[in-house]
């Protein structure tokens, strides 16, 4: 078995020590690798898990994916306590220390640029859900929706009544949807105004997230630490507005969504 190098993040040299027992993927100790005044935080991983072929299989393994993602986050989290790390995409792996150094040298300028831009910033996640009101018997569909599908005596309803009710329910749902969209648009606008940058992630599939309701907005905001309290208060203040809408806040995260370095542009200072 050969040991590869898993790289978690690139940072400026730490002014406070990293926690001594910090463990990364597969429980291996995380350490710093310095090159030209930048450090990469790395740990050893076995190529039996991280060669391309092995990795393809591993990523299909829910337990492995979960453990690896949490281990990655654990290292980034520890770094966030002492510096502003530039996190790398999960499962970025090199053959040995010298290959990591080559990579750092090639992207030195881009790394410094990104680290300057992100210094002292954190990421906050905000999700908006439209809560499912269908099960409530369509209380938003108007008071005169007498009989309901599945309730007693469906025979009593004429075809025309049925179609009318159906249309009302659809209209009510569309109206609710419109309200939620409007709410999301406004909240995103006011949060963006408080943030230095924002990014929209794909809405989460409820089957995957296990969250109730429909995910309408899944956004990330880049906010200076010093203004985080203000930002959180702003999210919190939306609390009283609209029934049927749920807002979830996550963070603070390292600025995962704002590293702004794609493979194509890396190494080219802009």
């Amino acid at each position, binding site marked *: 078995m050969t040991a*590869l190098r898993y*790289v978690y993040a*690139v940072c400026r040299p730490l002014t406070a020590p990293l926690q001594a027992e910090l463990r990364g993927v597969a429980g291996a100790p995380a350490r710093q690798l310095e090159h030209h005044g930048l450090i990469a935080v790395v740990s050893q991983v076995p190529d039996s898990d*991280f*060669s*391309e072929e092995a*990795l*393809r299989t591993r*990523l*299909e393994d*829910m*337990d492995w*994916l*979960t453990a690896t*993602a*949490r281990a990655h*986050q654990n290292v980034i989290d520890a770094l966030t306590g002492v510096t502003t790390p*530039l*996190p*790398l*995409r*999960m499962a*970025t*792996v*090199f*053959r040995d220390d010298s290959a990591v150094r080559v*990579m750092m040298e090639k*992207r030195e300028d881009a790394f410094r640029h990104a680290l300057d831009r992100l210094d002292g910033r954190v*990421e906050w*996640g905000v999700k908006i859900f439209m809560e499912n009101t269908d099960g409530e018997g369509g209380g938003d569909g108007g008071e005169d929706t007498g009989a309901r599908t599945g309730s007693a005596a469906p025979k009593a309803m004429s075809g025309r009544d049925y179609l009318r009710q159906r249309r009302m329910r659809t209209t009510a749902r569309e109206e609710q949807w419109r309200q939620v969209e409007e709410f999301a648009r406004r909240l995103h606008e006011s949060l963006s105004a408080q943030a230095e940058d924002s990014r929209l992630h794909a809405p*989460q*599939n409820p*089957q*995957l*997230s*296990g969250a109730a309701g429909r995910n309408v907005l*899944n956004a990330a905001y880049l906010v200076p630490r010093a203004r985080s309290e203000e930002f*959180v208060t702003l999210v*919190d203040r*939306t*609390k*009283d507005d*609209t*029934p*049927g*809408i*749920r*807002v*979830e*806040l*996550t963070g603070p*995260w390292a600025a*995962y*969504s*704002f*590293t702004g*370095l*794609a*493979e194509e542009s*890396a190494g080219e200072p802009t």
Partner: protein
Amino acid sequence: MTVVERREIALVDLLDRLLAGGVVITGDVTLRIADVDLVRIDLNALISSVNENVPSPWPEAE
């Protein structure tokens, strides 16, 4: 409406960032898995795990 804060990090939130965020560098080993592939793979893993009716791998909100 309710605002929920700072509970245990949900795996989906983590994967949004780990698989769609972070600096993309093709490692020199053999990792040339495109973003799309990674996302597809993670969805496959999640969906199959959900469909098998195994307990949720991440803690439910409490």
